[in-house]
């Protein structure tokens, strides 16, 4: 009788079941090799020691929960079940959890990120900015109901600090915390007037503080346009944020103290300068006064002073005399002025009177002249008789000679005439009488 014959699948199925029953959950320690991450997110690798190798697979849903970066050469402890991949007949470890050997996963992740950012130069001292000379507005990224903001505000109160605080409320632990912290850093960095940022939270376990060890938070701090003070947990807690921040404060309270001290140091600088200025003014005035007194007491100046005193007296005298002279002169001028005015008035009167007289005489004269003017006579219809071609006016009958040619002018127009006869005795009245009859 032959032994029972199995199909491949049957054998595989039996082995698979046996393995799964024997190793429903097992912890396996070894070095990672042949690490490969598929596009689907599933992770494939081998665990090996000096003598043996075992294949391992980690599904995407588990792999994304691994806190640190899995890579070749890393010594890890994996938890999972052992089963068979039927198409290939491979038995493998189906890993559901992996931890670095000898330390916590978070610690390893912390070290890995720290190494990476350090290599990028994000922790370099020369990148660190000083706190502003006079921070007036501080942005705080933290939980609005947490210990950090309470402590910060308490310190400001106690120190009577006159500062403006702008809070960006962010979740500081658990799922999504890092994202909110990043948003807060970016938002406050862009908020107008913010001089310095405090990013932090109160104390807690390493898991509670974890968001401050996340790479996006570190990068947000690094790119912040204003200086950042990290203030996470207690003195002993050190996070990646602390390495990247411009200043690390051991606690949120310490961060607030730092800001206030900067402000106070600034106020003190002003006061000391103002004080020094006052002292300098006082001293220099004292010095100058002393110089003047010293000089005044010198022998030369004492002789000089006597001279000066004499001179002074003379000046006084001169001045008095000068004043007297001036007064007399002014009086004289006043008197002269009066007389002059009187005289000129009188003169004016006379001149006016004379002028008036002359004008009257002149007018009378012109009127007479006008009346007497030969033209006026001619205008009335009389004529004038000229001799010698009009050069000489005939005024008497004796001027007229018989046979002579004379010129006779009316006011307008003239004619020449030949003298036919001359009667030297005849009077003009006889002609008027004759005409009038």
């Amino acid at each position: 009788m032959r032994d029972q014959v199995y199909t491949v699948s049957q054998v595989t199925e039996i082995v698979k079941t046996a393995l799964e029953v024997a190793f429903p959950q097992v912890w396996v320690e070894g070095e990672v090799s042949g690490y490969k991450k598929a596009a689907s997110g599933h992770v494939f690798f081998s665990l090996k020691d000096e003598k043996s190798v075992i294949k391992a697979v980690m599904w995407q849903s588990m792999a994304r929960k691994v806190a640190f970066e899995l890579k070749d050469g890393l010594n890890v402890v994996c938890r999972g079940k052992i089963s068979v991949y039927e198409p290939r007949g491979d038995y493998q470890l189906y890993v559901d959890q992996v931890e670095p050997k000898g330390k916590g996963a978070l610690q390893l992740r912390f070290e890995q990120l720290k190494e990476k950012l350090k290599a990028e130069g994000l922790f370099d001292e020369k990148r660190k900015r000083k706190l502003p000379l006079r921070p007036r507005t501080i942005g705080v990224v933290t939980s609005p109901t947490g210990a950090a903001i309470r402590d910060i505000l308490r310190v400001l109160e106690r120190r009577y600090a006159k500062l403006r605080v702008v809070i960006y409320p962010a979740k500081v632990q658990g799922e999504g915390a890092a994202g909110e912290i990043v948003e807060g850093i970016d938002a406050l960095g862009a908020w107008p007037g913010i001089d310095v940022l405090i990013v932090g939270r109160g104390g807690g376990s390493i898991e509670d503080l974890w968001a401050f060890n996340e790479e996006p938070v570190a990068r947000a701090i690094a790119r912040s346009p204003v200086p950042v003070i990290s203030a996470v947990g207690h003195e002993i807690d050190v996070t990646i944020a602390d390495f990247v921040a411009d200043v690390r404060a051991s606690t949120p309270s310490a961060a607030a103290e730092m800001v206030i001290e900067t402000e106070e140091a600034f106020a003190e600088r002003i006061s000391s300068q103002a004080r020094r200025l006052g002292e300098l003014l006082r001293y220099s005035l004292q010095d100058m006064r002393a110089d003047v007194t010293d000089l005044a007491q010198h022998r030369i100046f004492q002789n000089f002073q006597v001279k000066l005193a004499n001179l002074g007296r003379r000046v006084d005298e001169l001045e008095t005399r000068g004043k007297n002279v001036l007064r007399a002169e002014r009086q004289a001028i006043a008197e002269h002025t009066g007389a002059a005015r009187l005289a000129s008035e009188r003169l004016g009167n006379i001149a006016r009177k004379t002028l008036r007289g002359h004008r009257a005489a002149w007018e009378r004269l012109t009127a007479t002249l006008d009346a007497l003017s030969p033209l006026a006579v001619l205008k009335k219809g009389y004529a004038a008789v000229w001799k010698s071609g009009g050069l000489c006016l005939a005024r008497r009958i004796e001027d007229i000679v018989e046979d002579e040619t004379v010129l006779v002018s009316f006011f307008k127009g003239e004619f020449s005439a030949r003298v036919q006869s001359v009667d030297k005795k005849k009077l003009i009245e006889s002609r008027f009488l004759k005409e009038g009859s």
Partner: protein
Amino acid sequence: MTNLTFEKALADLEQIVAKLEKGGISLNESLALFEKGVKMARFLRGELDKAERKVEILLKDDKGNLKAEDFDAADADGTGEDGGTG
């Protein structure tokens, strides 16, 4: 903005004091410097006194825009960090 003129004023004041301490300037010039220095110090003190404490919190409105509102410090009871002990 204020910080700039403020810092400039302090730098000026310190420069004036240093110049006066060094000496060797005329009476007129030093009096002018004193006058300027006193003015700076008064301005700076005034600016310091002008400041006041104000606490605001940024909140998102329904459009997702941030808006600053007064923050009531009484809200910060220190319990919001779930296990944070401050």
